C-alpha cells in the first residue's frame, strides 16, 4: 500500500467538506460537512502515525474525535437556538456579522 492513497483520500474528503461548508444552506448540513473535514484530517494523522512508527498519530486522532463530538454538540445547540429564534436554519439568511 502506498502512503499516498490514504493521504489523497483524505485530501479529497477535505475538499468535499470545504465545498459542503461553503455551499450548503442548511445549518445542520454545514456541521456535517465540518465533520467530514475533521475526519479527513484524522485519516491523515493515522496514516502518518503508521508511516513514522509513532503512536501519537492515533492519540491525536482520538483527541480530534473527542473535540469533534464536543463541537457537534455545541454546534447543534446553536443551530437549535437559531431555529427557535428565526424559525429557519438556512445559514445564508443570517447576516449577523453585518449587524
Amino acid at each position, binding site marked *: 500500500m502506498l502512503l499516498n492513497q490514504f493521504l489523497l483520500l483524505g485530501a479529497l474528503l477535505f475538499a468535499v467538506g*470545504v465545498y459542503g*461548508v*461553503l*455551499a450548503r444552506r442548511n445549518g445542520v448540513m454545514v456541521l456535517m460537512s465540518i465533520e467530514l473535514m475533521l475526519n479527513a484530517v484524522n485519516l491523515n494523522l493515522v496514516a502518518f502515525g503508521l508511516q513514522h512508527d509513532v503512536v501519537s498519530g492515533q492519540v491525536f486522532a482520538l483527541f480530534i474525535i473527542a473535540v469533534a463530538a464536543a463541537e457537534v454538540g455545541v454546534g447543534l445547540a446553536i443551530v437549535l437556538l437559531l431555529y427557535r429564534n428565526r424559525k429557519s436554519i438556512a*445559514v*445564508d439568511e*443570517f*447576516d*449577523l*456579522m*453585518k*449587524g
Partner: protein
Amino acid sequence: MDWILENAFLIPLIPAVSFLVILLFGRSVIGVERVHKVGITAVGIVWVLSMIAAVSWITRVEDSTSSKYDDAEHAQIAVTEGLSASSAGGLDGELHLAAEDDGYGGDGGGYATTEPVISEVDGWWSSSGVDFAVGTLVDGQTVLLLLVVTSISLLVHIYSSEYVKGDRRFVHYYAFLSLFTASMLFFVMAQNLVQMIVGWELVGVCSFALIGHWWEERPNTDAALKAFLTNRVGDIGLLVGVIILFGEFQTFDIDAINRMVGEMGSEVHFAMLMASIALMAAVCSKSGQFPLHTWLPDAMAGPTPVSALIHAATMVVAGVFMIGRLYPVFFEGFSIGTSSINLMASIGGFTALIGAGLAFAQWDIKKVLAYSTVSQLGYMVMALGVGAWTAAMFHLFTHAFFKACLFLGAGSVSHAAHHTFDMREMGGLRKHMPHTYKTFVISTLALAGIFPFAGFWSKDEILLGAFAGQQSAYPLMLIFGCVVALLTAAYMTRVIWYTFWGEYRGHGHPHESPKVMTVPLWILAVMAVVAGAFNLPTPVLERVGLEGLAHLVQTYAEPTHYLNAIGLSHPPPSFWLAVVGLMLALAGIAITFMYFWRNAGPHGLTERNRYAKAGYTFLEQKYYLDHLYTDIVVGSIKRPIARAANWFNDNVIDLVVNRAGEGARDSGRWVYRWIDQGAIDNTVNALGSGADAGGQGLRVMQTGKVQNYGSLLFGTAAVVAIVFVIVL
C-alpha cells in the same frame, strides 16, 4: 558696515515676530486699537535696516571696485584701459561709458565685480549626507527689492491705520500685512531655490488671506480661491523648474547655479530651456502674465492698501524678480543674447498689450489699475526677455512707487466716495480732494512715461533694450512697447477724466482723506517724480556735470559676477528713441483729450464752463462722453483690441479656467461614482461573493454571511498554498 548684510535674516524676522505678536496678543494684551502701531514699528525698523543695508551695499561695491582697481597691477585681472582708482573720477562720460561697454561685452572679469554676501547655516535639511543650507543672499538686486518692499509696506501700514480703521478684522489685517512683509523679504533674500519656493508660496497665501479678508461675502472668497489656485497652477512650473535645475546642478544654491550656467553655457542649453519654460509658467501665474493673468483683476476684491502693496508693488513682481535672480538660466535657455524673439519677450509683450487694451474696458477704477499692472508687469517681463536686465529692475523700482500711489489714491477716492470703486459714480473729485488729485495726476504722468517723471526713464530703457539690447534687436517687442506706451497714456487719462473731472455723480459729499492717508500719497508722488534719477543715462548728467551719479541701479544693483559671464551688454542711450517714446505718450494723452474737446456740444455748457475755468476747456461735454467714448476711442482702440482681448479673456481664458475647475470637479464626481464606488468597490465586493453582483451591486460583500467570508478565506488559503507549493 557689512554687519547687516551678513545678518540680513533679521530683516524678515522682525515682521515675522510682529505677525506672531499681533496674532497672539493683538486682541488681548495690545488691544485692537493699538495693533497697527506694532506693525508700523516693526516695518519702520525694517525700513531703517534696509536703508542701512543699501548704504552698506553701496559701500561694498565702491570698496570692491576700488580695491580691484588698486590691485590691478598685482593681480592678473585685466582692468580695462583708462580705468584706475586715481583717474576713475576724472574720466569724462563718454570714456566711462565706453569702458563699461567693453567690460560687459568682452572677456568677462575685465570689469570689477562685487560678490554677493551669502550667509548660510548648514543642515536645514539633508539627503544622502548632503546638507542643504538655509541662509541669505544679499546683492544689489536684493537691496533694491528691500528698499521697494519696506518703503511701500511702511507707507501702506501707515495709510491702512486710517483706511481700515474700525474694520471687522483690524487685528488680522495687520497680522497678515506683517506676515506678508516678512514673507516677501524672506523671498527676496532667499539663498537657495527651496527658500525661494517657500517665500513664493508664503506671499501667495498672504495674498489669499488678504484678498479674502472680507470672507463673509462669497465673491471675495471666490476671488481669493481663484488667485490661490491660479498661482498653484503656476507653481507646478516652479516645482518642475527648480527640480530640473537641481537635477542638472545637484544644488539649490542660487549663486552657484548662476555661476555654473555661466561656465557651462551651451552644454546645458536644453536643460535650461526646459527649466526656463517651466519657470515661465510660475512667472505667468505670480506676475499676472498671459494667459494666467485673470486672477489679478479679481484679486481687487481685497482691501485697497493690500492691492497697492501686494497686487501692484511687491508680490506680483516676484516673478520678475525670480527671472532676474536666475537670469543666466533664462538667458541661456531662451538664447536671449542671440535671438530676436523668444518666449519670455513674447509673453511679456503680448501681456503688456492686452493688459493695456483691457484697461479701457473697465469701469471699476481698481480694475483699470489692475490691468495696468498686468500691462506694466508684461513690460518688465518683456524687458527681461530682450536682455534688458537693468531696465526691468529699474522699471520694477519706479513702477512700485507710482502704481502704489495710484492704488492708494484710488483707495482715498473710494474712502471719499462712499466705498465705491465704480468710476461712473465718481467725477469732479479734484476739487474735493486736491491732495489725492495732485498725487494721482503725478503718478499718472509717471506711469504714462512723461518727461521727467520716473516712468519716462525706466520705460525708455526698456524700449532701448528692445531697440539695441543684445547682439540682435527685438523689433517686434519695440513695436509692442511703443503701442503700449501710447495706450497706457490714453487709458490713464480716461481714468483721470472719469474720476476727477466732470461732475460728481455719487452720493453724499466727498471729502479729502485725513493726513495719515495723504502724507503717504505725497511721499509716493515725490518718489514717482524722482525715482527716475536712480538710473539716469550718462549723457543727461554729463551736461550738468554729475556723471558720477549716472546709472546707479546699473552700477549697484546688477549682479555683475554672473551677468558678465553670460555676456550681457548694455546699449548706449539713444536720444531719438527717448523722444519717440515721449511723443507716443503725449500722443496718447492728446488723443484722449481731443475726443473730449471735439465733441463739445450745446448741453450743460455752464457746467462745462466751470471746468473750463480750471484750464481744461477741451475736456467738457460729460453728457455725451460715454457715447462718444464708445463710438470713437473704443471704435479705434477698444473694439479691435480691447473687445477682442476682453472677449477672449471672458470667453476663452476665464471659461477655460472655470471649465477646468468644473471639469475637475465633474471628473472627480464621475470617477468617484463610476470607478471608485462602481468598478473598484464592486470588483472587490464581488470577490466575496461571485454572484449576486447584479441587483445588489454594492452590497454584495457586506452580506455579513458567514459562507461568503468562508469562501474568501478558503480561496485565499488556496491561492497562498499555490504560491507556496508551486512557485516557491
